[in-house]
């Protein structure tokens, strides 16, 4: 009987559906909707002409006070979300009523550096995948939330955690570890989607004898950090997985880890079948300001200086927008999109010309951007219609401090910190960059530095959120504000769009609620 049932119920989301996600614009099947990381919705019902009529249609409230940072997946009328700390819920996309919950108790001694957050699930076939704060990867039956397998990825007591949405590709689930403030040694792992068995691990800090290990002084590689805490992108044709890596440890006292500290603050291109490094590009060698490069890479094709190229675009926390050749890792261009002082600029190879006087100091060194960066984990968006990359930008400076750092397993290993210039002297913006030159085409100013990503749509809109609760729509071509709604809380959010009953919806978290908007 069960065999019969299995035969009748086809796999819900086979890999090919995700590869061909553009054929079903009403769904959102992976973290950035498509493997190319563009976070662009082909839905076009909501336009500059009618955006003023957007209304909240339903709200789903969570029961925890932690930041609610999930990107819902939308699959045939069901939304799959994570709720802090480690809950997965399936919601009716029409009403927001819940269909099932998976609630995992959180050990009382977990040590996430920066809040009990989770940014979403992955789906493949009939299974939903979630990473947890105690560094497990768990597979759940998409129909009822029951556990199919539970794999320990790393020891949470040493400071490891999983906060990102996993990336599910053909038969594999890929995750990157968090914990860069605890002197972990970072890695990116692939697990067999059916069994949960580890298929490969790529250490983001090379071990003894491996190429790159000599970019760390002495034994400092053992506590070198370079976590990989934001979901990457995938090119099925090249079979390469692209992933951003975070800061070297200790964050603000770089003396103990002399050298470039590979592969921290980099993007790595890994063979999806083996986990072997195809190429890497390090944006911020020997970082001393916590400028993680854990920003979603966007894969796009286009002309640069008269040549058609397969590109990887990345708006980096360090205030530069980079284009790399995604087949080879060759540096194509790097252009600032926000105020910066930490480097004099980039040389012809893309390497920053760092001013050593701007390293953190005992009495504080004023540097832009702040520790939180010119942007952060929240997603940028690329619209193939406007050929613009939209970035949610933080304009803020900080005093960076250096202090001693001693490694103790499971304890903070940071060696300093910052005191940010806040209030009206810090502000934010959504900026539109020419995707292929990095030139700033327009900006929409925000009252304060945001913690919300952006979504662009085929309807010609860009959606964003503010720290004062404003959820808003801009005209994609010009940045002109068209509509806004006060959600009533700080927005730590990534925005997505889906369709239900043939109608376009926009979903965004704010405070401790998920809001869904549409035209009535």
């Amino acid at each position, binding site marked *: 009987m069960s065999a019969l049932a299995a035969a009748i119920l086809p796999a819900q989301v086979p890999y090919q559906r995700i590869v061909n996600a553009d054929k079903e614009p009403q769904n959102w099947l992976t973290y950035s909707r498509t493997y190319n990381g563009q976070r662009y919705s082909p839905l076009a019902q909501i336009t500059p002409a009618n955006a003023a009529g957007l209304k909240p249609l339903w709200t789903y409230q969570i029961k925890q006070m932690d930041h609610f940072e999930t990107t819902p997946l939308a699959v045939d009328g069901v939304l799959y979300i994570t709720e802090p700390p480690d809950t997965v819920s399936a919601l009716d996309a029409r009403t927001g009523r819940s269909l099932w919950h998976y609630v995992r108790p959180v050990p009382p001694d977990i040590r996430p550096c920066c809040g009990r957050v989770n940014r979403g699930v992955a789906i493949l076939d009939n299974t939903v995948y979630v990473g947890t704060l105690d560094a497990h990867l768990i597979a759940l039956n998409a129909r009822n939330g029951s556990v199919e397998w539970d794999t320990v990825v790393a020891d949470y007591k040493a400071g490891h955690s999983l906060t990102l949405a996993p990336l599910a590709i053909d038969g594999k689930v890929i995750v990157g570890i968090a914990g860069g403030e605890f002197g972990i040694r970072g890695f990116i792992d692939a697990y067999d989607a059916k069994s949960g068995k580890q298929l490969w691990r790529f250490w983001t800090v090379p071990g003894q004898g491996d190429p790159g290990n000599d970019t760390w002084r002495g034994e400092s590689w053992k506590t070198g950090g370079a976590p990989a805490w934001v979901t990457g992108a995938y090119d099925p044709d090249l079979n390469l997985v692209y992933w951003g890596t975070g800061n070297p440890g200790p964050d603000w006292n770089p003396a103990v880890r002399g050298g470039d500290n590979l592969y921290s603050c980099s993007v790595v291109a890994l063979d999806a079948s083996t986990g072997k490094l195809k190429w890497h590009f390090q944006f911020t060698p020997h970082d001393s300001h916590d400028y993680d490069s854990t920003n979603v890479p966007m894969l796009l094709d286009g002309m640069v200086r008269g040549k058609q190229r397969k590109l990887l675009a990345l708006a980096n926390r360090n205030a530069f927008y980079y284009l790399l050749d995604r087949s080879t890792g060759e540096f194509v261009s790097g252009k600032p999109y926000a105020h910066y002082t930490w480097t004099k600029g980039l040389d012809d190879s893309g390497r920053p010309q760092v001013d050593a006087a701007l390293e953190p100091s005992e*009495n504080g060194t004023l540097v832009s951007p702040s520790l939180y960066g010119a942007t952060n984990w929240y997603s940028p968006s690329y619209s193939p219609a406007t050929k613009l990359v939209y970035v949610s930008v933080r304009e803020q400076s900080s005093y960076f401090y250096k202090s*001693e750092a001693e490694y103790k397993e499971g304890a903070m290993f940071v060696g300093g910190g910052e005191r940010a210039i806040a209030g*009206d002297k810090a502000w934010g913006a959504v900026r539109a960059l020419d995707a292929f030159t990095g030139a700033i085409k327009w900006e929409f100013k*925000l009252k304060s530095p945001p913690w919300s990503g952006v979504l662009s749509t085929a309807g010609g809109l860009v959606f964003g959120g503010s720290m004062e609760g*404003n959820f*808003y729509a801009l005209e994609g071509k010009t940045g002109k504000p068209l509509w806004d709604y*006060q959600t009533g809380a700080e927005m730590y959010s990534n925005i997505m769009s889906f369709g239900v009953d043939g109608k376009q919806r926009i979903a965004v978290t704010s405070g401790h609620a998920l809001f869904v908007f549409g035209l009535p």
Partner: protein
Amino acid sequence: MFPTVLLLFFLAAQSNPAPAPPIDWAKAKRLFDANCAGCHGPEGAGGKGPALAVPILPHARTNEQLAGVIVGGIPGTLMPASWHLGNEGVMLAVAYVRKLGAGATPPKVEGDAAKGQALFAGKGGCTNCHSIGYGPDLSSIGSRRTAASLRESITDPAAEVLEDYLPVRIVTREGKMVQGMRVNEDTFTIQIMEPSGRFSSFRKDSLSKLDKRVGESPMPSYKAVFSENELRDVVAYLSSLRGEQ
């Protein structure tokens, strides 16, 4: 990454009953001079920030509370969050502040507080703004500011204006002008309290002008209003306002 949650770890570390290591006082002084003395004075006698060389700190009666104030700051005041000091730095700062406070006597304030109270409500007309919420709440100002700094605020109000108190002048597209203090603001709207205490709210796209008077204070200088003795009395009154203790 983003360490607001560090606070919890620092506080947990503070209440850990492990034996305290010996204090490196030279290091503690260096740390205090670099991070604290700018506002609290090198000897903790106060300045922009309150005196720390006092027996009781109302926001920080216990060492755990003091560590919490150092790590997290005090919202709505000039006291910033200083989690960058790290566990050891916070412990040194706590030890140093307690050393400054040990054996200290409350600072003597000249002047007659009762007379000052009468001047505050009468001749000065201070309650016109400070009792309706237009001017800052002064009910515990004596625990946050030294006499010298209070005196400066009375004679030269613009010398130090907290960022939360921003005078604004707006003109609507219809030509109506409104002046007041910013109460709240987001990307699309601003809320203002007018001197009468009335709230008003505007969409920014309905304004032809939004003038933020950064660094200005709507409070007049009382230099020419109060005599030297009256000034002392008013400062004595304000110094006596210590809120719930």
